[in-house]
């Protein structure tokens, strides 16, 4: 087992620190047991079980710092990695941006660990995949999917007495079902800390329905459309905002959050006033670690409130320089939604496009946060409140900031997974007007 208990981790970290001769020493320790099954063409393809651990030692003399890592844990290796980090620190020049390690912190208890997920057996994994395969086979369709689960822990300690420990479990599932002739394709994804919430049969049924319904796609002209984005599509667009909340980038004038004259958008209304985005490590539906990798407590933070940019994330150095609280970046993000289901959003739409999934998202212009990418695995034309027919996929060129200014309606929040980053979020389906599709794709 790669998973150490709190006491075992603390004992190991104490031992590592006992070898230290530096002014300051900090040690980070992680371990993971993960497993997965991959399938395609209605058959299992590869499957793996991996156990791994890593130790990172940072030693400092004054403002000089050295870091070394190792994944071997006998006493000789532990002492060696400490010595190595000290040798590197002795050779280092002073870093004007060096900030002393944190002292002891108070962390709330996290809810990221679920025993049922840690106890997954090879049989349960193959049962979950068998249930998914059965749905596709019964529909005479072809399934390709991926089921993975991870049980991990992370711990850190330093010579100032800081100690932090967390265990977590997670399971992510994604499924693409295609018609046998390859003319239709549908997708669904799910992510949970608790595997008992995962219903692979139901998710595969959704993907299968989309595949069967998307087989006779018509081409409609590219242009600006009202679109309903399902949460998996919302995730890959909005996470570009979440990843870009760094204060230093904005202060330096090289972010979509920078403004002419050297100021930033902090405190300004930038998107529709119905947009509220925050992170909360204690949210019961999306628990995350209550401490960040450098030992700072993770707390509930509002990032966008009523359309106003409320907070930036800061490194400890930049926060000290600016004289503000050093708020770490979020581990997951939550967008407040409305009460309507996806079906109700569709029912209220005169003309529009339903998007299941977006793919291959890349930045085109960091100034406007213009992104490009394509629709995939279930794109449908809506008219008079009903899905009328499947349509061919589009390439889009759109900024999520502009998109959130064109907000029409928010649906009910659900937990989803970004296909780009594998990060879990709580997001609603959203309806926006004037979403820019720039060309057609023949891809199914």
């Amino acid at each position, binding site marked *: 087992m790669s998973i150490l208990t709190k006491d075992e981790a603390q004992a190991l970290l104490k031992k590592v620190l006992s070898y230290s001769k530096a002014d300051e020493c900090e040690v980070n320790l992680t371990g993971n047991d993960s497993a997965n099954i991959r399938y*395609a*063409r209605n*058959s*299992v*393809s590869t*499957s*793996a*079980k*991996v*156990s*791994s*651990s890593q130790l990172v030692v940072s030693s400092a003399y004054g403002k000089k710092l050295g*870091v070394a*890592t190792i*994944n*071997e844990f006998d006493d000789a290796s532990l002492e060696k990695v400490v010595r*190595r980090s000290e*040798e590197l620190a002795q*050779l*280092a*020049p002073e*870093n*004007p941006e*060096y900030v002393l390690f944190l002292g002891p912190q108070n962390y709330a208890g996290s809810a990221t660990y679920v025993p049922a997920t840690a106890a997954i057996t090879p*049989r349960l994994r193959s049962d979950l*995949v068998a249930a998914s*395969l059965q749905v596709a086979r019964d529909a005479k369709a*072809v399934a*390709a999917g991926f089921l*993975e689960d991870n049980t991990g822990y992370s711990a850190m300690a330093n010579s100032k007495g800081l100690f932090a420990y967390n265990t977590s479990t997670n399971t992510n599932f994604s499924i693409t079902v*295609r018609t046998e002739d390859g003319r239709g394709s549908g997708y669904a994804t799910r992510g949970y800390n608790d595997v008992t919430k995962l219903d692979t049969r139901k998710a595969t049924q959704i993907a299968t329905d989309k595949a069967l319904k998307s087989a006779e796609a018509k081409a409609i002209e590219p242009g600006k459309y009202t679109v309903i984005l399902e949460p998996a599509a919302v995730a890959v667009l909005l996470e570009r905002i979440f990843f870009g*909340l760094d204060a*230093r980038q904005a202060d*330096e*004038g090289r972010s*979509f959050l920078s403004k*002419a*004259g*050297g100021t930033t958008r902090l405190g300004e209304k930038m998107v529709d006033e119905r947009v509220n985005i925050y992170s909360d490590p204690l949210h019961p539906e999306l628990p995350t670690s209550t401490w960040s990798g450098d030992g700072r407590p993770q707390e509930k933070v509002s990032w966008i409130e009523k359309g106003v940019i409320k907070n930036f994330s800061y*490194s*400890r150095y*930049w926060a000290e320089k600016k004289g503000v609280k050093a708020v770490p*970046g979020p581990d997951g993000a939550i967008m407040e939604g409305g009460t309507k289901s996806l079906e109700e959003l569709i029912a209220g739409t005169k003309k529009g496009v339903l998007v299941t999934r977006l*793919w*291959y998202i*890349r930045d*085109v212009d*960091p100034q*406007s946060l213009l992104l*490009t990418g394509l629709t995939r695995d279930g794109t449908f034309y809506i008219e008079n409140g009903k899905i009328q027919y499947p349509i061919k996929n589009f*390439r889009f*060129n759109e*900024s999520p*900031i502009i998109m959130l200014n064109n907000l029409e309606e928010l649906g009910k929040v659900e937990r989803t997974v970004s*296909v780009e980053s*594998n990060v879990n979020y709580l997001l609603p389906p959203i309806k926006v007007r004037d979403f820019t599709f*720039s*060309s057609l*794709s*023949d891809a199914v």
Partner: protein
Amino acid sequence: MKRRDFIYLSGLGAAATMLPIPMMGNAIDPGRALETVDVALKKQLADVALNAARSKGATYTDVRIGRYLNQFVITREDKVQNIVNTESYGLGVRVIANGSWGFAATDKLDKDSIAKAAEQAVAIAKENSRLLTEPVRLASQKGYGEVSWKAPIEKNAFEVPIKEKVDLLLDVNGAAMKSGADYITSLLFLVNEQKYFASTDGSYIDQDVHRIWPAFFITKIDKVSGKFETRNSLSTPMGMGYEYLNFRPQDKIKGVTTLYKGRYDMFEDAKAAGAQAGEKLKAKSVEPGKYDLILDPSHLWLTIHESTGHPTELDRVLGYEANFAGTSFLTLDKWESKKFNYGSKLVNIVADKTQLGSLGAVGYDDEGVQCGQWDIIKDGILVNYQATRDQAHILGLNASQGCCYADNWSSVQFQRMPNISLQPGKEKKSIDDLIKGVEKGIYIIGDGSFSIDQQRYNFQFGGQLFYEIKNGKIVGMLRDVAYQANSQEFWNSCVGIADASDYRLGGAFGDGKGQPPQSNAVSHGSSTARFNGVNVINTARNL
């Protein structure tokens, strides 16, 4: 390394400042970069896994023992921001049992842990065999006995003192700032894969792979308007040692900006880039429409990668990537017809795992197959794919093409792209000759934004430098340029390729595929080429 891990460690993303770990040394890094594991020990450990798997009922087993070393040296402006040495050592064992694949990996390299991993791999294979529709069919492969391969590097970059690396990067930053950059991040990313492979076919293969990527990212800001532009380095990751940075006069191609062939002058490029970032801010915003494009190899490699490399991966064609990276429009019937037109007659695309200095070069792939070279597109016709041992039979091949790779000891090896390159034109032709013939066009240098659909039909690419061509002459710089095309139409519009004297490699460390995602390092060679009538869009927006 996963993209997010790289961003985290390199300090390039928002999390950059989470790890401000500057350090530099005057001596050779005291890290264990120069240590290797004794081959006799690796053989012993591998045999433990092979025997344990066989005793539990595996009909085939391979074992990979890997020590993966990375070094990142990262600076910004006048500061060393981060120097990170990472090391990962462990073992992965892959088996076939009951006709099904199983894999397990461990970083505990005692005999009991290795035997347990082998047993777990067999148990997984047996458990999952109930989900199979047909058993794995593995192409036969002779055992090579005990053999080895080493990348033919001239200077091991891990042996170069950290001070020399830091001095280079700080000089580069200084040159860029002096010529007009407001911000610069520069880095050296070094890779050494020490990998050992053993299989029940009787191969024990020890390999030593080296890669290097020097790069910088410059930003120039107009404070009054708040507009900013970026210019990234024109370097490329290479399968080379530190000699990549020891440039010679013959490695430079002089033109509207200096281009680099085989070796790289980071200082000169940074100096040019600082000024060009400023020029970009003042450049004319492109008028959307059809243009003839002249694409430099520092740009074209990425278009080759996305639109010929990925669609000819056999696992995509067969549907194994349907849930993530996608499938391919280059279906087997198109290959079987022997007349599917993918490119003009000038277009010859070759797969290769042996090219000197390339990222894909190894002696043997990660399932013990000796590597070679083969045609993918011949005179504009699709003639072949990229296959592994369990796919060879689908192409009627008796042996694998050697396209199996895993990015770590803990990752399952699977079909990955070899170097895929556009062959140079056969007629004598220079970059200037290509530009001369263009009435209304854009000359694009350097790679930028890139995106392509899951079957590889519709793509969009940006770049670093865009020069407007009017009546055979470069008339100035453009900005806000991206081009969109259908892959087949694009390659059919190729009307000119410069000769072999212009041939250069481009490439990436981060070619992503698979679930969980794995990174592949791959090079793509080409000479400058011309494509007619490509749709160009304007990417400027106001918030």
